[in-house]
C-alpha cells in the first residue's frame, strides 16, 4: 500500500505542475517573460526549455543540500544557487544557440528573479526528496513551456499571419506555415489578414487576458455543474426520505 502511495506522490508532483497547478495560468507567476518573449513561437518554446532546465537543476541541488542550509540564510543561498545555474544557462545559450540568446535578451537573466523558480525552491524542494523535486521541476517546466508556447503560437499567427519554424533553432530547415497571410513563390502577397497589433506589447496583454478569462470561465462552469449536481442529489435524497416517511 505504501508503495502505491509513494508512486502516487511521484505522479502527483509531476502532473500537478502541468495542468492543475500550472505556474503561469493558475498561480499567475512568472508573467514577465510570458508577455515579453512570446512574439514568436520558437522564442517562447526556447524560453520554456531553458526555464525547465533551470528549475530542474536548482530544485535538484537545493534538495540535495536541504539538510545543510540553515534557516536564517535560506533565501540568499537559494538565490546564489539559482543565479549560478542561470549564468551557466546564459553561457551555454550564447555559445550554442546564439539566435535564441539575442532574441531573449535580458529576460534570460531575469530567470533569476522568476517567482516560479524561487517559489518551487522554497515551497517544495527544501522539504521533499531529490526524486520528487526533480519530478516537480520537470512538471512545472513542462507546464510553463506549454502555457508560454500557447501564447506564442496565438500571437505569432494573429500578428504575422505565418508560423515560422527554423528561424531560431537553425538546425531545422526554415519553413513557414501560412495561416492568415500567404505569399506565393514569386513574392506576391495573395492574401493578408494578419493584425500587427498582436506583435506589439498591447497584443500580449490582450491574448494573456483572454486566455485567463477562458480558464476562469471554465472553472466557473465546472463549479456550476458541480453545484447543480449536488442540488440534484440533495433533492433526490429529500424525495426518497419523504417517500420513506410517507410509507
Amino acid at each position, binding site marked *: 500500500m505504501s508503495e502505491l502511495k509513494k508512486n502516487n506522490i511521484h505522479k502527483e508532483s509531476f502532473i500537478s505542475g502541468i495542468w492543475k497547478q500550472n505556474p503561469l495560468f493558475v498561480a499567475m507567476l512568472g508573467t514577465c517573460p510570458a*508577455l515579453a518573449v512570446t512574439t514568436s513561437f520558437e522564442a517562447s518554446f526556447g524560453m520554456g526549455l531553458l526555464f525547465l532546465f533551470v528549475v530542474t537543476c536548482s530544485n535538484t541541488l537545493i534538495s540535495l543540500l536541504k539538510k545543510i542550509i540553515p534557516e536564517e540564510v535560506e*533565501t540568499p543561498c537559494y538565490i546564489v544557487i539559482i543565479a549560478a545555474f542561470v*549564468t551557466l544557462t546564459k553561457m551555454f545559450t550564447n555559445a550554442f544557440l546564439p539566435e535564441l540568446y539575442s532574441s531573449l535578451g535580458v529576460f534570460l*537573466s531575469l530567470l533569476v528573479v522568476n517567482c516560479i523558480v524561487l517559489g518551487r525552491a522554497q515551497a517544495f524542494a527544501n522539504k521533499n526528496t531529490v526524486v520528487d523535486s526533480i519530478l516537480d521541476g520537470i512538471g512545472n517546466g513542462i507546464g510553463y513551456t506549454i502555457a508560454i508556447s500557447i501564447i506564442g503560437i496565438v500571437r505569432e499567427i494573429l500578428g504575422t499571419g505565418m508560423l515560422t519554424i527554423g528561424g531560431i533553432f537553425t538546425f531545422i530547415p526554415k519553413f513557414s506555415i501560412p495561416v492568415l497571410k500567404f505569399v506565393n513563390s514569386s513574392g506576391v502577397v495573395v492574401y493578408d489578414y494578419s493584425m500587427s497589433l498582436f506583435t506589439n506589447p*498591447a497584443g500580449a496583454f490582450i491574448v*494573456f*487576458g483572454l486566455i485567463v478569462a477562458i480558464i*476562469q470561465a471554465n472553472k466557473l462552469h465546472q463549479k456550476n455543474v458541480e453545484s447543480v449536481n449536488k442540488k440534484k442529489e440533495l433533492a433526490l435524497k429529500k424525495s426518497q426520505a419523504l417517500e420513506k416517511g410517507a410509507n
Partner: protein
Amino acid sequence: MANAITAFLLAIVSSMLIDNVVLNRFYGICAFVGVSNKVKSAFSMGVAVVFVIVFASLICWPIYTFVLTPLNIPFMDTLTYILVIASLVQVVGLFIKKYSPALYKSFGIYLPLITTNCAVLGVVQNNTDTGLNFALSMANAIGTGVGFLVIICVFSFIRMRLEESNVPKAFRGVSIALLTAALMAIAFMGFSGIIS
C-alpha cells in the same frame, strides 16, 4: 554641457513615456498585476521601488566597470547584481522599520517582493548589457523608477473603479486588469517616435 543635460532629461522622458517600463518593456508585470486596489499601498510600493532601483544602479554600475571588467569575469554580473539588490532591500527594510514602523507595516509583504521585481534586476542588467555610460545608466534608472511609480498609481486608480463596476463573471479579477493594461499600452504606443 547643455547637450549633456538634454540627453539626460531625454533619457528620463524616454524611459517614462516612450519606452515605458511596464507597458512596453514588460518589466514589473508581477507586481503590476498583483497590486492592490488601494492607492496608498501602491504609491508606497512605487516609491520603495524607485529608491531600490536608483541605489542599485548607483552601486552596480561601478562594480561592473571597475571590478568585474578589469578582472575579466563579466559573466559574474547577474550573481553580483542580485546579491546587491537582495541586501539593499534588506537594508531599506531595516531603515524603514527603525524610522517609521507604521510605514513598515503598511508595506507588509511588498517589501521582500521588490527583490523579485523584474524591473530592478532588468534595468541594472540592461545598463551594463548595452554598454551605457554612467550618466545614461542613472538617467535610465531614474526614468524607469518614476515611470513604474506613475503607471502603478494610475493602474490602482483604474482598478478601484473596476471593482465597483459590473464586470462579467469570467473576466473578474486578473483578466479585466490585463485587458485594461492592453488599452493603456495602446494609448502609450502613441508616444513612440516622439524623439527624433
